[in-house]
């Protein structure tokens, strides 16, 4: 993308923010289940991307950098034990949709609760795959692990989810 070559770091932040800020916050929120914290993680990612722009020089690389930052940031935020206490109130699921709302919300909550119980890596792989729809290669790159590891985290994660959903403890 030629236009991006002329971008300075401020332009890059503005442009990439417009296209991807929302999805990066959502990625963080799915990993953390805390919107406020996810917003901070995403903002931190943009601030550090701004500093790295001179080297990145490419929107795709910048996006990959941002995703890595958000996943890493979410993981370190989660280690901070305060997270559990900081859970933002969940939006009222019954307000979401008229017809199928309630049942569907229950189903989603059940799946997300099961997802919570998985180890970090498995959860990260599954969210990058089934929310952002990233390829195996990109997930491997984002998490700094091998493709084989992505596959095994994914299959173990899905298997664990399946079990948890079949036999709710």
């Amino acid at each position: 993308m030629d236009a991006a070559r002329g971008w300075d770091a401020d332009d890059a932040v503005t442009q990439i923010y417009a296209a991807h800020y929302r999805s990066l916050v959502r990625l963080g929120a799915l990993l953390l289940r805390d919107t406020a914290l996810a917003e901070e993680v995403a903002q931190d990612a943009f601030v550090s991307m701004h500093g790295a722009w001179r080297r990145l020089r490419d929107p795709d690389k910048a996006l990959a950098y941002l995703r890595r930052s958000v996943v890493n940031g979410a993981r370190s935020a989660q280690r901070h034990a305060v997270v559990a206490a900081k859970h933002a109130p969940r939006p009222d699921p019954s307000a979401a949709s008229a017809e199928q709302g309630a049942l569907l919300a229950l189903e989603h909550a059940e799946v997300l609760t099961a997802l919570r119980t998985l180890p970090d890596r498995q959860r990260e792989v599954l969210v990058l795959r089934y929310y952002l729809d990233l390829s195996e290669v990109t997930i491997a790159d984002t998490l700094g692990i091998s493709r084989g590891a992505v596959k095994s985290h994914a299959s173990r994660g899905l298997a664990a989810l399946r079990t948890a959903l079949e036999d709710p403890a």
Partner: protein
Amino acid sequence: MSDDGRRDVPDSMPDDDPTAARLRAALTAEAAMVQPDDSLSSIRDRTGGDRPWWQRPAVLATAAAVVLGLVVGSGIALLGGDDDPTVATPGGKGTATGPETTSGAEESPSPSEATGTPTAPAVEGNVYVYYVMDQDNGMRLYREERPNPGMDPVTAALSTMFTQPALDPDYDSTWPRSTGIVGYSVDGETATVDVSDFPEVGASAEDIAVQQLVYTVTANDTSVKRVRLLVNGKTPPSGHQDWSEPIERSPRMDVQGLIWLLGPTEGETVSSPVQITGYGTAFEATVSWEVRRQGSDEVVAEGFTDAGANGEFADFSDSVELDPGTYELRAFESSAEDGRPLNTDSKVFTVG
């Protein structure tokens, strides 16, 4: 779809697995409820102006490694120049000088999750008329609200569709202008529409023409679920398809314009702030919009808002303050690949 890391070819990870499908649905729904506040200005406050010394290029160039060590060591992880970024513990605002981040702990729930017929029924006395516009993903249906001269709504809508051009010059009808209505009747959920002409076009254009008619009929009489189409009392003379059975609406994702700009309408005069309304679906639900003075390429205002995502269509809205004048508003999805606008719908309007 694109190459920003998103998948364009199947790989070994399962998609048809039922657990994966449930997970995907849950993640999508959960993500849609996350409505971040606009934070560009607080990010700017942290990146702009007087840079801290460790971000100055000279320092970076000569002593990057040292700086890196110092920064990490002192716990201020606000640095660029690292391929494996480790983000500071959130809350460590580093050099923030401006207003604090507004964190959306009290987010309002996602607005309309409309899944049914778009928006409210037509204003009484108006009818819905579907037209066609060419997009990257094929010919797509777009809807206009037009006055009913005082007939049965379906007949009024169809005769407008056949004989009147769309208000929006980007829209067109695939039906011959000479087409007339020979007969219209309803039996239960099936309407029978008999018309005088049938488009002689390629298979996909014929398909969209038939859907244009089916969408228009069913939009104006919601008790009708399918349409038996006759041309002068006989099965349509198609070289492509057998239209002898009653026809239902094809799925929206296949035929409907993915982003409809509904307000302002084409040629309308409105006052500032201008309410932008529409209906549609986009990746990450993000619909971008831009306003230009008519005939100019310069964007005078822009923004983005939420519609539906993942095949769900939803209302979207935003507002913009504009000086008096005539403007073109475009709503579109930014390609994740290169920022190119996709599924653009545009309207020219005047601010009085």
